[in-house]
C-alpha cells in the first residue's frame, strides 16, 4: 500500500512550532504527512519540536505551525515575538512553511480582539486579523491556480485581510475563508503557505505537502526527485469530502 524507498536521498529537518500549546484540530496530521511523504519520496525525515523557552533548532528545512486556543496563543505570544527576527530571516530566505489558523494570524502584523486590544504578530506576513463575534465553521472548498482544488474545514472567529505584499492561497468555492467579505482563503508569500483550513490540511491536499517537500529538498540539495506515493485513498477521500455539505 505504501512504499518506503530503500535509497536515502538526504535528510530533511522539519520543525514543529509550539506543538505543546498550538495543536488543536489535528495539527499533528500535517507533521505526520510530511514525515511519511518525505520517506515515500526517498528522503529521511527528522522531526523536531520547538516549544516555549527551547533553543531554536539550527538548519530548519521546513517549518509547520498549527492552531491554538486563545489560552495557547497567550502562552506562546511573548516567545514568538522573541523568535520573530529568526523566523523572518528564514521566511525571506525561502524556507518553506505551513502555518495554520492561529499561527497564520500570529505571523501577520497584528490581531485586534473584539474588545479592541491589539496583539502584535511577528509581521512576516502582510496580513491583519480582527476578532469578531461570528464563528466561521464548516467544510471549505478553495480553488487555487497553484494547487488545484483545496479541501478542508474551517473553525475561526478572527477575520483576516491580506495586504499588498501577499497573495491569497485561493478563492473559496464553498465556505468562507479569510473573512466574510472578499471570498479569499489563506495567504502565499515566498515559500509560505498559510491557511485557516484544518482537516488536517495536508492529508487530503498532497499537492501542498509535496510543494513544501520539493521546495525544502531543492533548497538543500539543489534538485528533487519524486518517489511514488500511493495517493489512491487521498483521491477518494477528496471526492467524498467534496460532496459533503457545508
Amino acid at each position, binding site marked *: *500500500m*505504501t512504499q518506503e524507498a530503500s535509497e536515502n536521498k538526504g535528510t530533511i529537518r522539519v520543525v514543529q512550532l509550539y*506543538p*505543546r500549546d498550538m*495543536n*488543536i*484540530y*489535528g*495539527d*499533528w*496530521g500535517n*507533521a*505526520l*504527512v510530511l514525515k*511519511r511523504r518525505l520517506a515515500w519520496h526517498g528522503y529521511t525525515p527528522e522531526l523536531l*519540536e520547538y516549544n516555549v523557552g527551547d533553543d531554536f533548532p539550527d538548519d530548519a528545512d521546513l517549518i509547520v505551525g498549527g492552531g491554538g*486556543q*486563545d*489560552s495557547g496563543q497567550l502562552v506562546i505570544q511573548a516567545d514568538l515575538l522573541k523568535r520573530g527576527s529568526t523566523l523572518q530571516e528564514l521566511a525571506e530566505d525561502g524556507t518553506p512553511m505551513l502555518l495554520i489558523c492561529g499561527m497564520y494570524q500570529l505571523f501577520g502584523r497584528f490581531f485586534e480582539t473584539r474588545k479592541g486590544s491589539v496583539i502584535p504578530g511577528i509581521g512576516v506576513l502582510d496580513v491583519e486579523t480582527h476578532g469578531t463575534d461570528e*464563528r466561521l*465553521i*464548516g*467544510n471549505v472548498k478553495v480553488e487555487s491556480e497553484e494547487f488545484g482544488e483545496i479541501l478542508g*474545514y474551517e*473553525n475561526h*472567529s478572527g477575520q483576516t485581510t491580506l495586504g499588498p505584499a501577499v497573495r491569497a492561497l485561493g478563492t473559496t468555492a464553498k465556505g468562507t475563508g479569510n473573512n466574510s467579505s472578499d471570498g479569499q482563503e489563506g495567504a502565499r508569500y515566498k515559500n509560505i503557505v498559510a491557511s485557516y483550513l*484544518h*482537516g*488536517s490540511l495536508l*492529508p*487530503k491536499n498532497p499537492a501542498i505537502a509535496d510543494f513544501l517537500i520539493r521546495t525544502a529538498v531543492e533548497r538543500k540539495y539543489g534538485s528533487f526527485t519524486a518517489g511514488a506515493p*500511493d495517493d489512491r*485513498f*487521498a483521491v*477518494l*477521500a477528496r*471526492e*467524498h*469530502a467534496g460532496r*459533503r455539505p457545508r
Partner: protein
Amino acid sequence: MFFFSVPLGKLVRRITRLRGGGSAFPGLVVEKIDPGFMARTLTTLPHGVAVVSGTNGKTTTTKMVVELLESQGLRVFTNRTGSNFTRGVAAALLGEVDRRGRLHADIAVLELDEAHAVHFVNRVPPRYSLLLNVLRDQLDRFGEIDKTAELLQHVASKTTGTVVLNREDPRVARIASALPQPGSGGPKVRYFGLDDSLLSTFPNDDDMRAGPGSPVPVVQERAHADVVLRRVGVDDADFEYDGAVVTTRMKLRGVYNIFNAAAALTLARCIAGQGSGPTDPESLLSALSNVAPAFGRGESLIVDGLPLDLVLVKNPSGFRLGLKSFPAGGYATMIAINDNYADGRDMSWLWDVEFDSLRNGGVDQLSGSRAYDMALRLQYDEVPVSEVNTDITSALAAFIRDAKGRPKRIFCTYTAMLAIRRELSKITTVEVVS
C-alpha cells in the same frame, strides 16, 4: 394552561410514538404551552436533581449512578432515552408523571451535554453536579475546549449542594478554585481520582496533543479524593473508598468506563450519605458489579455464536481509550466514521488518534460517509486495510461474512452506530432503546 399541559403533552407523546417519531417532540410541545412544567416538577423531589456532564462517559456514568442509587432504595428519574437536552428531559418527564403532573421519584439524575446543561441549570439549579472531563470533541459546535470548561464552570456555580469533580482533569479540577467557599454560599466540592500508575492511560487534553510517545503527565500535589481507582483487571477493579481498598467484579469493560465508576461511586456516596441511613459501601459496590454497559458503549452482542463488540468513538480521547481498552489481538476489526451533525463534521480529530495498535492485524472493513478519510488516516499510520465501502449496510454484511469464525469489533461514530444497530437487530438480539 397549567392543568391541560400534562394530559396534552402525554397525548402528543402517545401520538408521536405511534408514528415512530422523535423522542423529544412532546417535550417541545409541553415547553411551549407550559414553560414552568419542568422546573415545577423537578423541584418537588426530596433529593433534588443531579446533573452529569462532561465530554466522555456521560451515558454510562449516569446509568451507573441510577443503578447505585436504586440499590440504596431510592426511586430515581432519569433521561435514559439519550435525549440529553432540556427538551428531552421534559419529554422523559411526560412519560413518568401521573396525570396530575406529579413525579413519583426521590431524585432525578440527568445526563446533559455541556451546552444544554447550562440552559438547564439556569432554569433548575441542581443539588448535585458530576463533571467528568473536558476533552476536544465537537469543536465545531463549542468552538474551543476552554469555552467548554467555562460551560461546566457555570453548571458548578449553579449547584446548590455538592459538586463532584474529576481530580485528574486539570480543566475540571480547577473549577473548584473559582467557586465561592461553602461558608459563603458555594457548593461543597468532592473529587474522584486515579492511581498514579493509571494516569498515563488517561491523557488529559494537554497531554494528548503530540504524536506517539507523549510524556507521562507530571504528578502534582492533588486534592483528597473520596474514591480512587487503583487497579483495573480483566473483569475486576480495585477502588480506594474512604481510605480502604476494595476489590469488586465488573461487568463493564474498558478502563474509561471503570474510571467513570469511581465518579458514579463518589456521587452516589454523597447522595446516599444525605439520607437517614448510613451509606453502605458493600451494597453500592455490589450494585456496581452488576451494571451492564449502556448501548454502544463497549456493548457485546452475539453474531454467529461469537462476540461482536460495538465501541462508540466520538473524539480522539475516546478513540484512543477504546483502542487501548479493547486490544485488537484475535479480533476482526471494522471502523465506521460518519460526519453527520451529531458525529461532528470536522475530520481533523482522526489525526489526533494513533492507530499503531491495529498495524499487525490490519482493519477488515471501513465504512461510513468518511470511510476514505479513515482509510487515508490508516495509510499514514501504515495500517493495512482490506475493504472500504461507504455504504454501512453492505459493508456490515461483508464484514460479518468475511470474518466468519472470528470475534468481531466495530468502532463507530454515533450515527454510524445507530445504523449498525438497526442492521444488527435484523440478525441478533439488540436492546431496543426507545
